[in-house]
């Protein structure tokens, strides 16, 4: 009798081959569900790493086009379909990190690099320049910036400016307390806070910095090597 049933079972499953042949309908569905979940997980992981990879790889291309810009080429685009231009390069010599800063935070520029907010002056000009970047990519190192650290900005016009980091604080995005027209030549670096959170939140981490006056030529030559170092490491 039991031989009969197994025979019947085999007949039903005859259409399917290999491993699946040994599963009944219920088991197939369960397995498919598990596979689906696994696939979704893989896709999400892929998406996450793609975003990170995009941030890293684009910086290499940006660096190349920024160097070309420094050499006097105008209308250089990091890649043909880019929708922004490079603006400056920021270096934290003590931490050994560097990144190319883009202009404007509209649209998707932040996915590729730090960006200077369009309604603030260029670094080194009168007022407060604000550069923002993602906490999990380009400004991952911002938490390591300590008061007194030097930050070097190379503008696209070739000017090399040194800023000294001051205090840092945490504020809501719409209550930043940053005044773009404040007296002095200031720089503010901003990223999201808390640093290791995985959710997008309203809080921002803000580092204030002030231009080091009269540091023009001497700083430029003295800091030439630290500026170059991170570039080579890429």
């Amino acid at each position, binding site marked *: 009798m039991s031989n009969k049933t197994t025979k019947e079972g085999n007949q039903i499953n005859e259409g399917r081959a290999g491993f699946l042949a040994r599963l009944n309908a219920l088991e197939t569905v369960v397995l498919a569900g598990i596979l689906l979940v*696994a696939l979704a997980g893989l896709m999400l992981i892929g998406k996450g790493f793609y975003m990170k990879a995009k941030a890293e790889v684009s910086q290499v291309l940006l660096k190349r086009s920024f160097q070309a810009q420094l050499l006097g080429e105008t209308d250089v685009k990091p890649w043909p379909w880019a929708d922004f231009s490079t603006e400056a390069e920021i270096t934290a010599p003590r931490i050994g990190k560097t990144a190319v800063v883009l202009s404007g935070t509209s649209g998707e520029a932040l996915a590729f690099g730090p960006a200077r907010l369009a309604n603030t002056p260029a670094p080194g000009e009168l007022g407060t320049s604000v550069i923002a970047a993602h906490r999990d990519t380009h400004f991952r190192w911002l938490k390591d910036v300590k008061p007194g650290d030097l930050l070097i900005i190379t503008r696209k016009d070739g000017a090399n400016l040194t800023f000294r980091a001051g205090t840092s604080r945490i504020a809501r995005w719409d209550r930043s307390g940053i005044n773009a027209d404040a007296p002095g030549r200031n720089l503010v670096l901003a990223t*999201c806070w808390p640093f290791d959170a995985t959710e997008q939140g309203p809080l921002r981490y803000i580092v204030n910095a002030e231009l080091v006056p009269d540091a023009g030529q001497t700083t430029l030559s003295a800091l030439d090597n630290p500026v170059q170092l991170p570039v080579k490491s890429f």
Partner: protein
Amino acid sequence: MLLDTENTATPQRRANSRQIEYLIIAALAAVTVVLLFAMGFFSHAAAETTEGKPQHFAGFVRPNDMGTGALLFPSRELGSFVEAPRLATDVVIDVNGPIMRTRVTQRFQNPSKGWVEGTYVFPLPENSAVDTLRMQIGDRFIEGEIKAREEARKVYEEAKAAGKKTALLEQQRPNIFTNQVANIGPGETIVVQIEYQSSVHQSGGQFSLRFPMVVAPRYNPDPIVQTVDLDPNSGYAVNDPVPDRDKITAPVLDLSANAKINPVTLTVNLNAGFPIGTVTAPFHETDMQTVDEMARKVSLKNGSVPADKDFELSWNAVAGKTPHAGLFRETKDGKTYLLGFVTPPADNLAAGTQPNREVVFVIDNSGSMAGKSIEQARDSLALAISKLRPEDRFNVVRFDDTMEVHFPSLVPATPDKREDAIAFVRGLTADGGTEMLPALEAALRTQGPVEPRALRQVVFLTDGAIGNEAQLFEEISKNRGDARVFTVGIGSAPNTHFMTKAAEIGRGTFTLIGSEDQVAARMGELFDKLENPAMTDIAVAFDGTNAQDITPNPMPDLYRGEPVVLTAQLDGATPAGKLQIIGKTGSQPWRVEMDVAKASEGKGIAKLWARRKIDDLEANAYAVNDAAALDKQIETVALAHHLVSRVTSLVAVDVTPSRPAGEPVASTDLPLNLPDGWDFEKVFGEKPQQAIPEGQRKAALEQSEEQAMLVADRMAAAPTAHAASLIADAGSQVDLPQTATLADRHILIGLMLLAFALMAATTFSLWRWQLRGLILEARDRVQ
């Protein structure tokens, strides 16, 4: 026997187990779907909600929210402001033909015991120009002088540092100015007077003006008191647990009582320049006096309640006397300024003879449009397409660094074609660079010839984030042919300069859509224009006299009911000659001539000309390589006509008349001390004729004192003037963008899902293993 029962029982059992199996399968599938759904939903919701909306607290305001003139003080909440108590407002509007001058005088108070630096805001109507600023702070009088922008700021900063009363009025963007007022002392009264000039709005024979008066309700932040009545028997509260309703539902200052204590007076001296038919003020009670057949004096009724609406006044001419042309002049510094307007005949454009339209929509879906901008663009375009008539023909072009023309050529706007195009638009995402030129070329050149009697219109939706403006302008001016180019600016900060100029060269108009809720209204306005073109190819010439500058240049097309309004500067104080205006309605030529010598005298024409001249100069910036020279040109015009512009600001300096030192200044004797030509009386003292019952008066006074205390509580007043300026500086702040990607979150959720799948797979195989064991065992037992 045994076999028999087996045979009958098995199918039944099998059927039962099948059923259960199906049920389990269905349940599992449902669980999986729900799980996937929830995951997708959560990651989406997280992206939307955690960003946090801008925080608004009752009673705290931001400069852009103000619907009427207000003095704002920095509040204890960084980045927010509180409104200074407004003690009195006086408005005088002089209408002279098509020009109106508005003088606003407002008295405010610093209710706190500290120093503050305030910001005066006033929502200016479009195309208006501020030229006068007078203030009184405490016992000092300051008057605005026009200066080059940097110079003005320097003067202001120096005066501020020296502890003097000072104010600076700068233009941020056209129609948006900020007026900073430094060094306001404890308890001091501030009087602000500004004068601005604008044009009367004309449409379809109706003339109208509008004055912004919407007062933001003031919330009364009484603590919410919740009273609980305990039932004596059960010990439970049984009454309505809603907190004290009276205190929630009556938070607004009683406007009628406030109006008596803090009065608003408004007078319109209407001099229409033609016999007036009817005058109406739809939202306010007014007193109307007839001066003569061409003039009226309109004032707000005494103690009238300021409605929560802007003041509007509209008038028209006696039937049959509607002016179709007018010419006014003003002589200033040996030059004559002319203002002419002509309303073209609208009769030959009956509704039935609307020309067919050929519309090419061009939409920018480059990376800079990502986020809200592309949503607004999609909505606007879908709305525009849905409004086409079946007789119209259309096409859609989208571009980033690539470009796509949706239909091979123009297609009739049949319902299915419209649906098709809307679906295409809805599917657009913002990505890539901005290569506008090929799209523009496609729209202007490759859409085939214009059908006879049809109108070719190109509607361009973009944020204008481009670098090759000059190239694009050239393309438009060379290849526009008969087409009209309309630009629609999308997003919070589009490149308005590019789009205004592109529309001007393309002889169309520029529409700005700043937010989601403006889409319907603004696109509606644009569509009225697109559907009703009245006159094209307008040109102006002077015959027998030397006209230097005619603005606007070139003349735009006219739409139904709109007049041609032009201003010109002529040499000499008494020019003679003829003004000729030619144009085309449909294919019919149209021409009008006016004698310059017969122009009637008008006021403020020179200022209007100057304002338009500055607009023209700004608009032509793309053609001028030397930005400094352009700035200089604008500065010269602005300084000569005392106008605030991008490069000139009003800085107020002390003009207090000398007075014996130590003499106390009470508000009642202030008018005596006013500098020459100043007129502040209206905002001081209550008029005796306003008889208010004593009890009511007292209650109102108490209420406004209470309000003042509330404002004082929320203000961030400083012990010294210097500290006040630091607080004010911190107030104008930069919003920071979202700087967290979802990458980590995606990876985390992905890992969790993988772990879950792994566990499930293990459980599954274990279960299967055991099951097979059981089955085998059972089989063995049977055998």
